Structures are given as C-alpha cells and as structure tokens.
C-alpha cells in the first residue's frame, strides 16, 4: 500500500486563490472515483478545510495533537458523511504554525501513506513554516493560480521552493508539478482583462492539470459545507474538478473550459487549451 500512495500538496503562495476549495473538490472527486483519500489541513491557526467539508462540528483532535503525540491518528481522522472513502485530518485553530515539527509531520505523513491511496495536503498561504512543511514530503504538487499577475508570480516563487526545499528535491529526485488555473473567465481573458491560459503556462513553464471556470457555484458549495464536486455534480466547476482528478489518476482527458451557460456566445469562446 505504502508504495502506491501519493502525497499531493495543494499550494499557491498567494492567499485566496482557491487552495482549500480545490483540495476539497479534488479530494471528493477522487473519493467519488472509489479512491481512498485523506485531506490534511496544514493551515494551523486559520483552518478552513473543516468548514468547506462541513465537518467543523465533529473536530475533536487535530494535526498538532497527532504531531505532538497527544492523540492517535485514528482519533483525529474524521470520515466524511457523504463519501465513505474521504477522510479529513483537521488543523488546530488555537495553535500557530510553530507547533509543527518536521519530524512530527514526517511520521504523520508516513502513517497516512500506509492507510490511504491519496494524501492531499492543503497548504497555508505564504512561504513560511506552514507552507514549507505542507510541501516537504509531497510527491506531487498542485499549484493553484488565478489568471492574474500577482498570483502567477507567487506561484512561480512556490515552484522554486518545491524544486529546492522538498525532501524529494533534496534527494535529487523530481517533484511532479501541475498548474491548476482557478477563477478563469473565458470571455474576460479573450478581452484581455485577464491573463490567458497560454500566458500563465508560458510564465510558469509547468504542465496544466485543469482550468476551473469562475462560478457562483463555488461560493454556494463552500457556504453549505460541501465540496463543489458533491454539491452540484453537473455544474461547470464540478466537471472541471472531476476532469482534473481523472488526469491525476493518469487518464487522458482533453482540456476544456466547461461552462454553465450554453449560449452561442459561450460556445464561440469555449476554446480548448493545450
């Protein structure tokens, strides 16, 4: 089991670009495909993943408790009520990121590897301790980026850290990296009000995992405490996340930007991205 488990980190550098939403949506999409998934909240002190998954009232123990040996992993893991192969390891809201130790995180990740197919670490924003520990033991990184210059530059910074500060990088191995573009608006990009997909990929020179369209569904889903892939499976962002999750599992899915509206105008601009 341990040799097939994949540790993913969902990271971005910049805050508010959709790391937690993407972690929940991809975790749920993988679980919907029958994979055994745990999502781990590394945003100690500012936890949100429990809310987005609707598990906030069931948190007893958290990542810090497990890292410090106060609680066992099995006591801290929370199983999703809708998807029985989706689990959450919440962060502590009362502590800060200094409570995380590298050794502690290493042993928790090692134990999770032996129990799950996918370990998805939701990184905090920034490039400090919380973010570096979240990526430290990852095999694969998903860099969440908005089509906007400050987000893209921060993502580039994070890619530099992934290539130097992770355990795989220090061992001289490659860390697999994917860009996930979120809050993408095809029409605004075509009018030049946003960076295009080509712009983002040119700057980051990293393969694309998916393009998540800007949608009201994302906010609605997170307010009802449900990953968008569960809340409304047929919505455009849900289809985009499901496609991204299938690509993670190694399937070849053509890259499209799903849309909610089916007008002629959207079809005209609903182009494909390499």
């Amino acid at each position, binding site marked *: 089991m341990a040799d097939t488990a994949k540790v993913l980190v969902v990271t971005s550098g910049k805050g508010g670009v959709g790391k937690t939403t993407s972690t929940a949506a991809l975790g749920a999409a993988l679980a919907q495909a029958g994979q055994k998934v745990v999502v781990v909240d590394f945003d100690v002190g500012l936890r949100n993943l429990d809310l987005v998954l609707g598990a906030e009232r069931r948190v007893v123990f958290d990542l810090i408790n497990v890292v410090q040996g106060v609680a066992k992993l099995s006591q801290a893991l929370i199983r999703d009520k809708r998807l029985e192969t989706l689990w959450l390891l919440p962060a502590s809201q009362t502590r800060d990121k200094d409570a995380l130790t590298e050794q502690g995180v290493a042993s928790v990740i090692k134990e999770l590897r032996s129990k799950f197919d996918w370990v998805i670490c939701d990184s905090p924003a920034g490039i400090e301790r919380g973010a570096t520990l979240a990526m430290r033991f990852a095999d694969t990184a998903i860099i969440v980026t908005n089509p906007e210059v400050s987000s893209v*530059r*921060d993502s580039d910074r994070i890619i*530099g850290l992934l290539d130097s500060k992770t355990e795989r990088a220090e061992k001289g191995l490659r860390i697999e990296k994917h860009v996930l573009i979120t809050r993408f608006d095809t029409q605004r990009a075509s009018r030049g009000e946003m960076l295009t997909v080509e712009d983002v990929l040119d*700057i980051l020179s990293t393969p694309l995992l998916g393009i998540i369209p800007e949608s009201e569904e994302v906010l609605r889903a997170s307010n009802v405490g449900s990953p968008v892939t569960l809340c409304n499976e047929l919505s455009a962002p849900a289809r985009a996340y499901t496609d991204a999750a299938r690509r993670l599992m190694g399937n070849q899915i053509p890259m499209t930007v799903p849309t909610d509206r089916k007008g002629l105008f959207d079809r005209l601009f609903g182009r494909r991205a390499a």
Partner: protein
Amino acid sequence: MAFVLTPVEPIANWLAELDKWRRTSPDFFVGRPIILDLGGVPLSENAIGELIGALAERTIRVMGIEGADPDLLGPSLPPLLKGGRATGGDIVPTVCDAPKAVPVAPARAEPTSLLLETPVRSGQTIIFPNGDITVLGSVASGAEVVAGGSIHVYGTLRGRAMAGSTGNAAARIFCSKNEAELISIDGYYRTAEEMDASLRSRSVQCWLADRVLTIAALD
C-alpha cells in the same frame, strides 16, 4: 612553465650577479621562455628597453613582461602578461618538469560558464562571478541572475539580469524575449520603465557603449 626573472635595484648589481650565475651554467637560458617581472623596480620605458637589450646580449630572450605599467610598454617591447605565477624573488630560476608549457593563462580547474537547464524562479538569485551564465528557460519576474561575464537567456527574461558584476564593462546581456524588470552591466543599469517600449517582447542584446547602457533588438 616559463622562468621568471625578477630584477632588483640597483640593476647593474643585479646584472653582475646574473653574470656570475651564468658563468657556472652558461647554457641555462638558451631556448627557454623567460618572463621579466618588473613589479619590484620602477623603470621608465627607456630603462626597460635597455634592460631587455642587456639581457639579449646575455642570450636571454624575454617573451613577456609582468608587473609593469601597460602604458610604458611600446610596440617594440614584449607584451604585458597577467596571471603568470612568480617563482619567488630569487633571480635563480627554478626548473620545472614541463619547460615547454606556455606561461600565459594557466589552466584553471573552475569552469568559466554556468549553464542552467531549468527556469529561474521568482525569488531565486543565481550568482556566478567567474564568467557567463546561460539560462535555457526563462528568468521569472522577481528572480535575479548575476554574472561576472555575460548573460544569455534563451527563454523570456522577466526578472533582473546583472552582467559584468565584477567590473567587466565588456560583458553583454542577450535574451530571446525582453520583459526584464532591470538590466545592468558593470553597475550601469536601466529599469523596465526606462526602456524603449519598442524593445519590449522581442529578442535584444544589451552592452555598454562608452558607459551608456545600450539595448538593441536582435531581429
């Protein structure tokens, strides 16, 4: 390895001592490359010429001069050398195993160029004082590349490039697409705002023309 002769003042006494030494081994200097280290004696152009003439009379042919003011060395005198290693202040030369080796530019172990096969990411600084840097990918916004020699970027230069950082005004910067935040050669710099808009988003080279940082399109 060449032999280095290091004259000391007064020159006449030094030549007398050289003669005394030549009497014991008359053919020592025949056919050997000799370098004259003038670092210890302040001589005029004429005095240097006379000294070289005096050595020529003793069948000592000087192939290069070290430690002299380059302005003093006219075309009739041997060229100025740099980087040759002195064998000490003694006039008695030391014999080495490979007398045929050329004295200039002794082989260095350190490489003089740095090749980066991966993009330079935002926040990274690459410093290479020993020579040129070649970047196969792009240099991101917020990244810095600092070279003692020239800088070549085959992707897009979006960050900063500083060439000739160790005082080399002949260094240049080349990039296949110029979106640079700042370029600098030997301390002379220009920010993105000070660049002509017509030079953006195309391949350019940058050099110092009479202490003015100049940028020109390559295509």
